[in-house]
């Protein structure tokens, strides 16, 4: 089954390698991985999608927690969450097909962000399913190039815990807030 982890890490050189190393070392294949900044300076957030059953996911979580630079791991697979993927898709078009393609883009609530004489670039945000659906209908026109971010995830509802713990170097004086409680609930 597909498991989604949200992993918050100290933004330090080599941390991405340390995290992905856990998956490689324990023989799990990462399906998608996104990394970016968070609301807290010095803390990066990764959304990692991996094929792992509940028992394997629990062990992966425990192994991720063993990394000194990992601040928090949440397995949000079973929690109500917003999943989003962003894609840029270059589609072959000419004068005859451009209008049709733009109509399909409209239906999917996507946007055309670049137009060239023989192609255009579509930007779409949504669940992986929705993006797959658009790609499917665009394919007959010729999908020349595609870039996708992979899954970004956030739990629905109100955040009921303290903020992500902050590395001491960034915020001296903050008490160790590294509790292991669920990061979010609904």
């Amino acid at each position, binding site marked *: 089954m597909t498991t989604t982890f949200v992993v918050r*890490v*100290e933004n330090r*050189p*080599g941390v991405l*390698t*340390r995290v992905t*190393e856990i998956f490689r*070392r324990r023989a799990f294949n990462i399906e998608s991985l996104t990394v970016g900044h968070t609301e807290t300076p010095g803390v990066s957030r990764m959304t990692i999608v991996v094929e792992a059953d509940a*028992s394997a996911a*629990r*062990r992966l979580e*425990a*192994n991720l*927690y*063993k*990394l*000194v*630079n*990992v*601040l928090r791991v949440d397995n949000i697979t079973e929690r109500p969450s917003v999943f989003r993927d962003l894609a840029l898709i270059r589609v072959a078009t000419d004068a005859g097909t451009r209008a049709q393609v733009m109509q399909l883009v409209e239906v999917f609530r996507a946007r055309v962000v670049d137009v060239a004489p023989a192609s255009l670039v579509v930007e779409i945000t949504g669940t992986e399913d929705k993006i797959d659906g658009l790609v499917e209908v665009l394919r007959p026109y010729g999908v020349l190039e595609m870039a996708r971010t992979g899954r970004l995830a956030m739990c629905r509802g109100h955040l009921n815990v303290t903020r992500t*713990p*902050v*590395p*001491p170097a960034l915020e001296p004086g903050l008490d*160790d*807030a*590294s509790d*292991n409680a669920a990061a979010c609930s609904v």
Partner: protein
Amino acid sequence: MTTPVLTGAQILWESLVREGVEVVFGYPGGAILPAYDAMLDYPVRHVLARHEQGATHMADGYARAGNRVGVAIATSGPGATNMVTGIATAMMDSSPIVCITGQVGSRLIGSDAFQETDITGITLPITKHNYLVTQPGEIAQVIREAFYIAASGRPGPVLVDITKDAQQGRAPFTWPDPPRLPGYRPDHSPSDEDLAAALTLIHRAERPIILAGHGVIQSGATAVVRALAERAQIPVAVTLLGIGGLPASHPLNLGMMGMHGEAWVNTAIQEADLLVALGMRFDDRVTGNVKTYAPGARKIHVEIDPAEIDKNVKVDVALVGDLVEVLTRLLPSIAPARRGAWLGHIQALKGSAAVRDIKNLPDCGHLYAAHVIHDLWRETGGDALVVTDVGQHQMWEAQYYHHEEPRSLITSGGLGTMGFALPAAIGAKFARPGAEVWAIVGDGGFQMTMAELATVVQENLDLNVAVINNGYLGMVRQWQEFFYERRYAATPLVNPDFGAIAAAYGLPARRVEARGDVVPAVRAARARQGTMLIDFRVEQEDAVYPMVPAGRDLHDMIRRPSPIVETGADA
């Protein structure tokens, strides 16, 4: 008070001294030269190994024997990569060591400079944590964190790679406060509910067994484990690294479990209705086929590392935390029990093997390794600090040398690193100078690191080396005998004269070929101040029995065809 401004190299030693470091094991080279130069001004003894692998094993042996962090130091490139085997060994056996490596100047990193290697990348999966330090001002903080991480929680190796310019540059030195690492959680504690669930299982069990692993020794839990066993009358089986966790002579100590464990121990585990696993990780060498492992047993796992829970064997109750803390909380609620039937049954299982005990064997003119170990145990009164290598002799030592104390057997269990014994014995001797140290080593493994005899001589050490010499890579040969139709591919050894090797280093040696000469040789070695090597020429094609073939059921043991030498308790 003004803050002193020191070089990075000086800060390194200031920090190590503050961490209580008295001895480091190392090998100098270009990128670590500034640190070596500064070392002369600090009260730290440097032990020059003959290979960086040896230095790392020395730090490991020092850590295991002395229950403190061991330190190894090497240069960049090949110096660092030579440490890899020693680091992996420490990782697998959860041994707290800090490895310090020099690195090329920070501006050369990534340029494939002379003796540059990405040692933090290389050691990522075999260290508990590692650091690349490029600023002198970072060194003190990193060293403090490295020692804290290495020794806390489940211990393990930490590598600190310091660029040459960070060693040469200057920075103000202040000794930092104890580290606060928000992402590091060494301490866990089980809930009262989980403790209650464990208690229920223990009280309901009729045929329980405690499985005692390395964690018992590392957390200093021997007394509390003994108290638990005695109060609840639960027999104790030990892993290879758990040997010494309960005195061998204790009536509840069954002996070693697993691939070369005693037959009655494995049979008892298979028949148990409860396993209480303490600081062990259900390694494949102790479980055999996990699908048929202890099929009728509920399982309680007390373990400090949450990632070990349900990894190999699914357990009913997991108590994640330090053994001493968990068992101390558990003990007052443990009801005293009597298990006469169960203990009597195990005694009966033992009976058939005990009559084939080594002490009842006629001297048929052959020298068996078991004889050597047995006599060595007798002569040393079971009080030696034994460091073994890997292979047949390692298993025979575990079977025939009866250890009464924790940290009296040091061996490479998880990684099974040949060449471990001699350097680890050197490290152990530094940790416990008053101990009688014996390195017991096979003729194959000895040749991997025997250059460390030079270290023994240079440091004027008093330890003894027993080479169990059968002219083969014995354990591999045994597998070839059992599973590869005796096709002895690359296992026969043409050995040097080990006595002559010792003599070349200026060390006395003896060769022993008959059982009657074992005791006089051991006595001569013990009587003499300084190191002596004994070359025991043992039976060439002997095998370690019993044996559970890899992946087979734990009760599916290969027994010795005729009862020549069988494992067993010895008076």
